[in-house]
Structures are given as C-alpha cells and as structure tokens.
C-alpha cells in the first residue's frame, strides 16, 4: 500500500449520510441480484452490498461500455445528417464507483496506456476522466484470486482515488488523489481521525489477506518462455476442451478488443462500438474467408500470449490483474494459473 495523502475513519452507520451528500454523482456499486451480483447504479444506499467480492462481470463496462453508440446518421435528407453521440449517455454527470476491488481498479491502470496512446480514444478517456474510484480492500480474497502474483495485491491502490478498509464497525479511508479528497471534504462531519489501534488493525488485516491468498502464479521469465514454445503441442492439448465462448474475455477487467458496426433502419443508422472477443472465429476472419486463427487452439494461445507476452513487452505490465473471473466462470475449468505455471 502506497502512502496516502490523508487517512480518515468512517463509522459504518455514517456511510449512507456520506453517500447522500454525494448525490451530484451517478453512484455505482456492487448489488446482489440473487445468485448474481453486478456493479449497478445505486439509487438507494440500501441496495449497496459491500460484502460482495468480485462481481460476475467486471466494472470495466462502466468506463469501457460493451455497447457504445458513436454516431447516428440519417441519409434521407437533402444533406445527410450525422450526429455525434459522445457523452450523451451520462447527462454530463460524473460517476462514482464505490466498492471496486483492487484488481478491477488495476484493470483501468492497464487499459489507460491502450486508450491514451498515439490515438486518444474519446469514449474511454471522457468516462475515465469523469469517474472517481473508491476501492475496497479484500480482507479475505476468494480462493481463485491471485492478484499478488501479477503486480497487485488485496490492498493494492493502483488506479484508485480512495481505498476503504473494512474494520468491522468502521471503514478506514486512505485517500490518494485530489478527486478522492473532494469526496471526503463534502461531508466533514461524518469522518473522524483513525485511532492508532485502528491503524494497527488495518496492518494486521493486510498481512492476513496476503497470507490467505493461497493460489500463486509463477510469472518469472514467462514472456521469454512463451517466445520459445509457439509451436508446442501444449496449446493443442489444453485447448481441446475449450468451448470457444466469450466468457473469459468478456468478464476480464483488462480485455479491450472491440468491433465497429453500422446498424441500419432504412436510411437511418447508428455506428456502434461493441466488445469483441479473440475467442470467436469471426474476430480474425478475412473478407476472403481466410482465417489466420482457424482453430480454438490458435485463439486460446493468442489470449495467453497477448496477456503474458505481447502486452508486457509493450508496456511492461501483465495483461492480467489476478481477479480470477476467467477461472471461476469457465464452464470447462480452463485455468490460467495452471497454464502459466506449467510452462
């Protein structure tokens, strides 16, 4: 955990008061939908469930939408009309994500270099700029979590404006950015100064969290190793059971591939950007019908290579935050930790 610019204590019964004072934001947080959890728009603080660890789908979708209208057009005019759709979906309101777990916030730190490179992506960047992230440390990581192996940790603060730690009856808030500071300054009465016992408890919790994360991914030297085994039978073997569905990529907090399509109704239409998945054959098929990644083996291999070779070579960061979703939700138990540890 890096050094915060400010540390506050928030008694749990004051949480709703604080959130009520933040009503200029669209607030999103984890919500329980009976056997399904999601990061949803919080209209009433009672909907918020901060005991939920990783929601099924990562909150990536709140900044990098699965479906984003880019332009709307009408050709049935003397002069064809084109309307820009950027920024039309949030009414100019800033958004606040509360209870985001460190791995998911780490995901945004991963996406930034892609969308904020030579080509600035206005859709991603405007949302990113308009979003404040209040993280929640994982006192008890899930059994398939492995954030500590890939440059994160259950109390990691990358990408976060504030990190909250649950001490039972109180939250300790570590504030890291000016964006975070503004949130706390909105309600000076609800916060107190944390006691030294509380801070000690926080350290203990962090130490316990680190030791209870039992699954480990061995990443040392793996990008180089991958470079030597592109043609190995290994990829054939591990991909035999792959279904070729999009679960691993669509739940992932770091996958960012998209497709652009025109959806038409007569003379009118919308140019829409939607998530795409490298696990689908259509992802690489050429107009000629030729597909350079014809089999599931090629596609699964590409997913592993992108996350553990190509991306780290480009940006010096693994394309994985250890959130465990692709392991937890794969219907055929393909396990990215096992894959990387084996090679």
């Amino acid at each position, binding site marked *: 955990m890096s050094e915060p610019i400010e540390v506050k204590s928030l008694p749990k019964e004051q949480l709703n008061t604080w959130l009520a004072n933040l009503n200029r934001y669209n607030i999103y947080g984890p919500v329980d939908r009976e056997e*399904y959890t999601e990061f949803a728009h919080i209209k009433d603080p009672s909907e918020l469930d901060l005991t939920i660890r990783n929601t099924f789908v990562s909150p990536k979708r709140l900044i990098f939408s699965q479906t984003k209208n880019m332009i709307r057009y009408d050709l049935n005019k003397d002069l064809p009309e084109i309307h820009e759709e950027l920024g039309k979906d949030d009414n100019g309101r800033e958004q606040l994500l509360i209870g985001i777990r460190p791995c998911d916030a780490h995901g945004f730190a991963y996406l930034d270099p892609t969308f904020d490179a030579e080509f600035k992506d206005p859709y991603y960047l405007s949302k990113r700029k308009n979003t404040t992230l209040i993280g929640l440390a994982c006192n*008890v990581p899930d059994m398939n979590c492995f954030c500590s192996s890939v440059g994160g940790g259950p109390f990691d603060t990358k990408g976060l404006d504030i990190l909250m730690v649950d001490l039972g009856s109180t939250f300790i808030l570590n504030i890291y950015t000016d964006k975070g500071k503004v949130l706390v300054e909105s309600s000076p009465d609800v916060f107190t100064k944390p006691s030294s016992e509380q801070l000690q408890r926080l350290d203990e919790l962090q130490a316990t969290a680190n030791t209870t994360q039992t699954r480990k991914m061995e990443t040392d030297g793996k990008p180089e190793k991958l470079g030597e085994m592109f043609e190995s039978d290994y990829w054939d073997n591990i991909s035999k059971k792959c279904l070729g569905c999009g679960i691993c990529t669509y739940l992932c907090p770091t996958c960012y591939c998209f497709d652009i399509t025109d959806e038409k109704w007569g003379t009118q239409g919308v140019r829409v950007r939607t998530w795409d998945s490298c696990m689908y054959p259509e992802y690489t098929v050429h107009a000629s019908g030729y597909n350079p990644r014809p089999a599931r083996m090629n596609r699964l291999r590409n997913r592993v290579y992108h996350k553990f070779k190509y991306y780290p070579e480009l940006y010096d960061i693994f394309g994985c935050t250890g959130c465990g979703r692709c392991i937890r939700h794969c219907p055929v138990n393909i396990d990215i930790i096992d894959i990387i540890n084996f090679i």
Partner: protein
Amino acid sequence: MTDIKNIVTLGVGLMGQGIAQVALMAGYNVTLVDINEELVNKAFTSIEKGVKKDIRMDELEILDIDLSFKFKINNNEFEVPKLEVLYEKCLTCKYPNPIIHDILLADPVKPRGKTNEGYEKVTELASLNTEERWKYWAEKFDRCIRCYACRNICPVCYCKECLTDKWEPDWIRKSVNLTENTMFHITRAFHLAGRCVSCYECERACPVGIPLLDLYKMIEKEILINFNYEAGTDMEAKSVLTTFNPDDPGEFIL
C-alpha cells in the same frame, strides 16, 4: 458428483470444520464462510492441523444413501444432504441412465432424490400476468453479455453458421441491449423446441445466471402435452416440429 469441484461450508463451528476437512481431503476446493471472521481463521488453522495428521485417502469412505451422502473417516461419520452438493439438474434428471447405448458400463442408477418432471417453476411463471413475466425476463435478458456459452456448450445446436454470426442480413444486431438480447434468447428457445433434452448445460455455463431452462422447459412441456413427444428418448420417432400428422391438435391447421 464428478462435476462438483468446489464446496462452500457455511458456518465453520465444529461440525462445519469437520465437513470442510473431509471435503478438502477428498480433493475438493473448499471455501469457509462464517459471519465471524475470527472463526474462519480459527477453522482454517485447525483444518490445516487436521490435514497435516496425514489421514490417508483409503480410510475415507463415501456412501450414497438415498437423499444424502455419508462420509466415513476415522470412525467419524458426516452426512451431507444431496440437495446441498448436487446440481438441481441432477436432482430432477428423469433419465440418469443413457437411453441409447451399446454397452452400459456399471449398473443402472436410480433417479436421484426428486423424480418430478421439473415443470413446477415454469407452471408458476406461466401463471403470472404478461407484465409480471416480462419484468422477470427483462431483468434476466438485460444482463446477458452475449458470450454465447449457452450456444457453444449445447449438445443439440448444430448449425454450421449460427444466425447470431450472420452479417447480411443481421437478424440479431451486435449491440448488446435488451432488444437484441431478447431476440437472441427467444430465437434460440424456438430453435430448441423439440430438440432440447434438458441437460441444463447452458444454464450451468451461463456466467450471469440466466435461468434459460425456464424458457426451454415451458416449450418442452407444451410439446409433451400436445404431441406426447420427448426429445432424445426415441431414435425412431420423427422430430416433432418438422413432421405433419393429420391428427395433430390445433384447429387452425387445415
């Protein structure tokens, strides 16, 4: 049982710890849950100690008794109700023995637990008014991420090119929203009419918990009532919706 990899113990007092330890040593991934975090940590330590005593696997016996499994380990016995460890689909499965086979390995098994046809939920859903039913489905379809795991895991989906992947015409658009998602799920449900064998794999694979069988079971029930046809149970029977019989019910048919 072979499908189960993960076991969660709710409440880790003495009993819960024991169950967790037995399950752990039988090779399952075990998660401990309790309202008290300290209890979890304590249980963790004591289970670790227990496991380290190196109790050998061959001293573990698992008995399949009617509605539960009995674990015997070192003269200790634990009973776990099947409802807690088996998929709903296994509990309602009408045909646990392969209907069509050349050789059956091992003895036939009895249907587990409940032996109903699994139509209670769809009957209940059908009794709701249109608005209530739409509310139920709109919330479910809205969360679909169109990963197509349901389609890809399906043993009866056989199209070389799924209509969801067609560009011209784009029957189902790429936009992921309630309209397009509903179109996808209703289309798939109709394509499975008279084909779905209730294996529940789509529901198991779905990463966002959409109760897909609530759709397919409704159609299955209608087909059973109207045509006395059950998909996958008779090799000689002709597919119900691709054949015409003058005696078929339905006055609208000439």
